[in-house]
């Protein structure tokens, strides 16, 4: 488990004339389970992508220990996402031509690990997320819930410190969504993996320990589970 916080300062970003982030300061503690919520267009996916180094914000910085996520080159950010960060999207974005175990092994192969070792580790992760039996199947043969578990294994196979997930249950029915969220909670509790998850579904958000609720590109409310009056510190 990492002991490094992820710190965002003064994040601003716009798409053309449309502002998406209008000044965000946020500190994510190691081991936390953070959910980012808010209406469509409130900036939640943009914030996640800026935190994960998928995009470089127009202004402000994201730091992970002594690594400047926002100041790194595309190549360095890509390497960061292969090693320290895992990213999971709504549709798992698995490579259709590869089997489940080959998909999961991909980040390890790109990092230079020999194929046999990479696939052995990928197989272990498929078991850990409960879909060992689909190792030899291609994504077209998997259910939505199975595909998302395979994508989760791929996001975590490099022993990522932080898992970033963008609407990971958006394409699943409620029981399949619950199974994925239970799995994320177990990974957070058992392995200490930090999780940062975007969702528009209150039931999914209820799995988080910290909720960052956005409105118009700003933090509207920051709540921590177990704290009585979360509003006082949070209303801005």
């Amino acid at each position, binding site marked *: 488990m990492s002991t490094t916080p992820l710190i965002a300062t003064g994040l601003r970003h716009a798409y053309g004339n449309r502002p998406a982030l209008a000044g965000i300061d946020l500190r994510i503690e190691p081991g936390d389970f953070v959910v980012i919520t808010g*209406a469509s267009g409130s900036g939640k996916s943009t914030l996640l992508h800026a935190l994960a180094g998928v995009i470089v914000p127009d202004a402000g910085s994201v730091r992970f220990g002594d690594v400047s996520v926002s100041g790194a080159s595309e190549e360095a950010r890509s390497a960061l996402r292969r090693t320290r960060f895992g990213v999971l999207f709504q549709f798992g974005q698995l490579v259709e031509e590869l089997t489940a175990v080959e998909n999961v092994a991909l980040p390890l192969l790109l990092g230079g690990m020999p194929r046999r070792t990479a696939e052995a580790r990928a197989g272990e992760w498929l078991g850990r997320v409960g879909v060992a039996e689909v190792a030899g199947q291609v994504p077209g043969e998997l259910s939505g819930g199975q595909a998302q578990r395979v994508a989760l294994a791929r996001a975590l196979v490099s022993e990522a410190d932080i898992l970033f997930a963008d609407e990971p249950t958006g394409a699943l029915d409620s029981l399949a969504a619950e199974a994925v969220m239970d799995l994320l909670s177990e990974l957070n509790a058992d392995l200490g993996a930090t999780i940062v998850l975007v969702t528009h579904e*209150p039931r999914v958000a*209820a799995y988080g320990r910290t909720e960052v609720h956005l409105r118009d590109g700003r933090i509207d409310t920051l709540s921590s*589970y177990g704290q009585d009056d979360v*509003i006082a510190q949070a*209303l801005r």
Partner: protein
Amino acid sequence: MSTGHVLLGLLSRGQQHGYDLKAGHDALFPSARPMAYGQVYAALTRLRDRGLIEEAAVERAGGPERTTYRLTPAGRDELEVWMSAAEHPPSEVNNPLATKLNVALVAGGPDEGALFLRRQRSAHTARMRDHTQTKRAADATLTQVLAADYALSHLDADVRWIDDALARLGEITREVTP
């Protein structure tokens, strides 16, 4: 929920006396108020008078007499009909949040309304986390999981309503102060 139908359902397991039925009810609905003995015996009397149950035996084991009851064929029919019939969906949903929001809008305007909604949202999401933890507990029973699912679905609907209301208030505020 009809107490009588719950008792008919419990008696479908076999003949029981009032104490067993109360214990059976409280185990089946752990988050509901425990059933009072007076309620059990009043309901049993009504069911017997309607011919839906009958006395099966009177036991005396070193204490007061205890009557055990069993379903009659009419009672079994009544239970079957009740179980298979859909409940009427409510035509009007009681919404205390809307009541308070409307008063806040009248007395304090959109800012007061939005402040209430944000506080309510936090209270709702905290409660949703509690129910989620209940469901995920290793010793959660199916009854507890189903009850938590139901509570979560209703709280989820409230939070979506709160989010929509906040968005509408934002639109109103923007119209007033362009």
